[in-house]
């Protein structure tokens, strides 16, 4: 069973004056789905291309199981580039067999594996069609099959969900989960944050070429400024509390943000002292809010 760690260690890259990556570091362990999020131009694609050796880093290193990734280990990576790429005039089956062989499989093994993935991804009746004759959704499936056909030990997928219909999203999610549970480290980037939140074991948020936050979704959500949701018919009770900021207020419901070291129990007591409390809960930000938060703060600091 493939089991190991893919490490991106302090990778930097500049294009002339533009800094694309600045000390980008993270690791993905075997059996883990790692979601890679960040706004356009944050450096996700550059990181992935460097991991695949398609681009050379100025400094830093990519390691697989502690060893620097070279062409032989790279062959064991399944890659789906951001810009989809297949031979438009080559038949689906031929294409997959060819790519499997190029990744080191024998001819028979390559055929078996290609047929297998064609069947799994529901492409059986299109297997003798040229790729350019397929719908975009089906081309995406072939692209996924191309990343998987050589049974890779690592998966690096750039925006695998973009352009997929809901059914294909489910198929893709299932396949990625399955690969992860087989011990393969899976990294993928996506702008669909709800999907990332649902699917990933760990998430890394990238901004301006660096990893600004990473951890499990729970860790990320429980970090940051604590917020409380309080439902109470009385109003104005919170305005005077020290270290408490009212950030949302509608009729009987308000959202409070607590400064560091403010005890939420003290807030509850204050609320009860003012009147009845129907709801008192901790609000955890969604990944989208976290993301927005990170990106805008970074944007301001730059």
């Amino acid at each position: 069973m493939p089991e190991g760690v893919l490490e991106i260690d302090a990778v930097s890259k500049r294009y002339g004056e533009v800094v694309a990556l600045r000390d980008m570091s993270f690791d993905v362990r075997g059996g883990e789905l790692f979601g890679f999020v960040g706004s356009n131009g944050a450096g996700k694609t550059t990181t992935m291309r460097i991991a695949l050796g398609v681009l050379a880093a100025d400094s830093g290193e990519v390691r697989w199981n502690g060893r620097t990734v070279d062409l032989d280990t790279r062959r064991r990576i399944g890659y789906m580039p951001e810009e989809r790429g297949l031979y438009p005039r080559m038949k689906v089956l031929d294409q997959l067999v060819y790519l499997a062989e190029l990744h080191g499989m024998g001819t028979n093994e390559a055929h078996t594996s290609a047929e297998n993935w064609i069947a799994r991804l529901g492409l059986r009746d299109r297997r003798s069609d040229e790729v350019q004759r397929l719908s975009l959704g089906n081309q995406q499936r072939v692209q996924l099959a191309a990343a998987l056909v050589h049974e890779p030990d690592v998966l690096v997928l750039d925006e695998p969900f973009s352009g997929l219909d809901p059914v294909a999203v489910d198929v893709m999610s299932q396949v990625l989960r399955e690969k992860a549970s087989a011990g393969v480290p899976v990294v993928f980037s996506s702008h669909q944050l709800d999907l990332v939140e649902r699917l990933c074991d760990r998430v890394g948020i990238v901004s301006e070429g660096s990893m600004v936050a990473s951890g499990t979704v729970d860790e990320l959500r429980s970090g940051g400024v604590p917020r409380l949701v309080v439902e109470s018919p009385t109003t104005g009770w919170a305005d005077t509390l020290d270290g408490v900021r009212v950030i949302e207020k509608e009729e009987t419901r308000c959202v409070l943000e607590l400064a560091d070291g403010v005890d939420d129990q003290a807030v509850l007591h204050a609320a009860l002292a003012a009147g009845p409390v129907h709801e008192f809960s901790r609000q955890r930000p969604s990944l989208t809010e976290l993301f927005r938060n990170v990106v805008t703060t970074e944007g301001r600091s730059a």
Partner: protein
Amino acid sequence: MTPARAVSLVAKREFVTKVRTRSFLIGTAVIIAVLAGYVVLQSVLFDDRQRSVIGLSGQATQLADPLRDKAMSFGIEVETRDVTPAGDAEQQVRDGELDALVTGAPPELKMIVRGSGDEVLTTVLNDVLRQQVLVAQLAEAGITPQQVAQNLANVKVAVTALEPVDPQHGQRLAIGLVVAALLYYSLLVYGTMVAQGVVEEKSSRVVEILLATVRPWQLLLGKVIGLGAVGLLQLLVISTIGLGLSSAFDVVDAGSLGGAALLTGILWYLLGFFLYATVFAAAASLVSRQEELQSVLTPISMTIIVAFVAGINLMIGSPTGATVTVLSLLPPFAPILMPGRMALGVAPAWQVLLAVVLALAAIAAITWLGGKVYANAVLRTGARVKLREALRL
């Protein structure tokens, strides 16, 4: 996976994909058809050119044999027909079925032709007529005509040629032109094919997946070998069929001349293709879309076209001239001109050897340089990559 396996996988894909395309099959068929047409035309022209049909009537019919023999010695072929009585034979001359009608008995022979009549034919007839009269008068004088004929036959001018005349010159020239034309076609078409393949991989972005598992030079070499093999296959098919047709129609002596031309053709195809394919590939790697391809390929195509057009003219005009000799030694032109000159039989061995050595040296240099440009430029999509940037990296 060994580099050799990677290269052979790429080459196999290129070969199989290309050979299966309709354009390859149709293209090959069209060239064979053109070549066959050329051969048939040649043989028909060859047949028709010096063949006259002469109608003989009455006593003139006894001239048939001497007329044919005499005509042969003038290098023309004459077919004689007995058209006694001569009544409607005149009409046949008018219709062009007969080139001439000869009537009457020697010494008062009459020849009827449609227009001005063939001068050579008239000379032949005059000769035949004079001989007949001479024989008759000799016989009258009691001298044996056979004795005189024998004595006459022994009288000849002694000819000393300062330059040896090649009886096969015409054939050699034809073969030389065909070889040059085929090489010109193959280099241009298969070089362009390499360029299109490079851009296809670049514009479809599949190159990014490929380069995550093979090195740029392996991809490039595989492509060049694969497509080069397709070109070689086509060249072999075309020339084998061409040679077969030529010998079937007696246009060319297929055995010695044709076979030698085929071998030199293949040698120079390989040299030329490896020289040009890398240049085509490197140029193509600078652009990202098929539409932009033409602009970067033009200088390369022009070189090949100039080599062909100028070379053909020089080869026909003065195959041993200084210009064509120098050009045929230079690597960019040698693959088209040298095999042409070799087929003409005017290239000394040392020149051939020098041209091959120069071509090999050029291939080594171009492969190194072109491979570098290709490796640097092939992943850079978007705007056209400047050659200087691709070289600097």
